[in-house]
């Protein structure tokens, strides 16, 4: 507790007031530090990415069909990596969005009470498992098993990355959309049921449309997680920087943007074109995830505002 005499002495004196002011400034500075860090990350990525443009043009980079960073002359075409990321991420969403939304609707609207209490924490626990463990399980267990059952030529392929990523993005999708569905006012459901609608009609026509913004936010956050995921895709997608084609591309090895950085930076000398190219990829990832997360955040705010 505060001795009364001490308080009075400190506040009345100029030193106490100065100290109070200084502490206030320090606390404000630690708040503003978050802004500084975002700016610093962006600045350092720029600083080490832009020198690449001295040797490779933007056109060569974005439309270049071959990523051959160590050949002579080196080629830094990002198309195979961009398409690799697109394949793996799109595949993950195709699995995770329907399953995740169905699971969210199930947990909040259909499951009996005791089951809700088990399911939600279990799904959230799934989110805490390190990505290197997902990669390990895909590499050692699921990949070889799928290759044998489906008679595939290789045990590591784009679709395996999609499958693993789906289970990593699912907790985010389930958790955020479940919150949004739960936030829909009970009166809306009651009105619909009173009009003679079944519970399923109520879920489909009333509850889910009302929770739309939150559900979109959940999907976008899941998308952000899937694009940025590194260790898992590095370990399970086979790491061949080739352009995937057609649906068959899912059964062949690919290389994503994130896996390229993680796999190659260790052996790259400082300030070489290769080093700058890897930072350029980092810069692209930073910008993409920045946009996806900003949109998701706006959607969450809108859904919070709508349900009030």
């Amino acid at each position, binding site marked *: 507790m505060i001795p009364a005499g001490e308080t009075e002495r400190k506040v009345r004196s100029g030193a106490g007031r100065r100290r109070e002011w200084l502490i206030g400034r320090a606390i404000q500075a630690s*708040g503003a530090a978050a802004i500084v860090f975002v700016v610093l990350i962006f600045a*350092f990525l720029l*600083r080490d990415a832009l020198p690449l443009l001295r040797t490779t043009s933007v056109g060569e980079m974005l439309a270049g069909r071959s990523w051959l960073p160590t050949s002579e002359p080196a080629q830094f075409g990002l198309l195979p990596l961009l398409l690799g990321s697109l394949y793996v991420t799109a595949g993950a969403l195709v699995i995770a969005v329907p399953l995740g939304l169905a699971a969210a609707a199930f947990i909040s609207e259909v499951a009996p009470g005791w089951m809700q209490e088990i399911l939600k924490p279990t799904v959230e626990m799934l989110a805490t498992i390190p990505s290197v463990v997902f990669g390990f399980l895909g590499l050692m267990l699921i990949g070889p098993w799928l290759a044998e059952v489906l008679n595939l030529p290789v045990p590591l392929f784009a679709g395996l990355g999609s499958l693993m990523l789906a289970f990593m993005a699912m907790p985010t999708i389930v958790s955020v959309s479940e919150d949004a569905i739960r936030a829909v006012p009970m009166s809306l459901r009651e009105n619909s049921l009173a009009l003679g609608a079944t519970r399923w009609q109520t879920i489909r026509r009333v509850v889910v449309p009302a929770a739309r913004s939150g559900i979109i936010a959940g999907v976008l956050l899941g998308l952000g997680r899937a694009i940025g995921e590194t260790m898992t895709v590095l370990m399970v997608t086979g790491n061949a920087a080739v352009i995937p084609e057609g649906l068959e591309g899912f059964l062949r090895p690919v290389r994503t943007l994130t896996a390229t950085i993680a796999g190659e930076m260790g052996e790259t000398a400082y300030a070489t074109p290769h080093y700058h190219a890897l930072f350029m990829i980092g810069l692209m990832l930073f910008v993409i*995830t920045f946009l996806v997360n900003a949109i998701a955040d706006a959607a969450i705010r809108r859904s919070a505002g709508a349900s009030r």
Partner: protein
Amino acid sequence: MSVLPRPSPKLAQAAAFSLLWMAAGAVILPAAAVLGIMFYKGGRAITWTMLTSVEEGLLPAIAGTAALVALTAFISAPLGVGAAVYLSEYARGGALVRLIRLAIVNLAGVPSVVYGLFGLALFVTVLQFGRCLLAGACTMALLVLPLVVTASEEALRQVPSRLREASYALGATRWQTVRRVVLPNALPGIMTGMILSVGRAAGETAPILFTAAFFSLTRPFPKSVLDPIVALPYQLFVMATEAPGVAEAEKWATAAVLVVLVLGLNLVAVMFRARLRRVRRW
């Protein structure tokens, strides 16, 4: 209109609900099965020597990870709690607060490998820490910062305002109120957030890939913060992908130990929070 007769609403509901049951099963069952296999294989492989031996065990990796998360918490706690105190106790809205929130949301979304690049450029190269424990912990501290801020702010906001008012009424200043009244009451909630972020830091691999970690079969302990470290997740990555001659049992054991460590930390945080809700009635 379709040729088929429209199913009755009751039938449609029964069909839709069974699909939802199946979807929930499809999320939970494969995950449970795979984790079950991992614990079975890992559990059979773990021996006492493996956990405690320096030469052929996981002890150096466990120690490296412990050192990394401790230093990470040490760096991120003052920054994160300070930011939370600002957002909850000092700021009165406005452009700065909106910017800070936007920054935190986006820090939370930056891919972990991009943090690794940033750590390499700033801490390892420009500040010349080299590839070491300190550079890795600084990088990891930035990664968990949004978690620390969000959890701490929530804990601070749950302290009822009448406690603050009572303190002001006694003549205490804002900082005195924060330090003697608000922070002590929010401490358990803040601790929960710290445990969660330690759990996150223990499992992350990409941020330490080029800033702190190395793989070594002699597996020395770090002697100072300027030494590189062997860390559990990186050890698992190299064992699984590159290192020749590692017995399969040892890989499974490493994976199981890592998951037990991370899930254990999260479980502690969850129980901590549950107890808190029971004990504290404002």
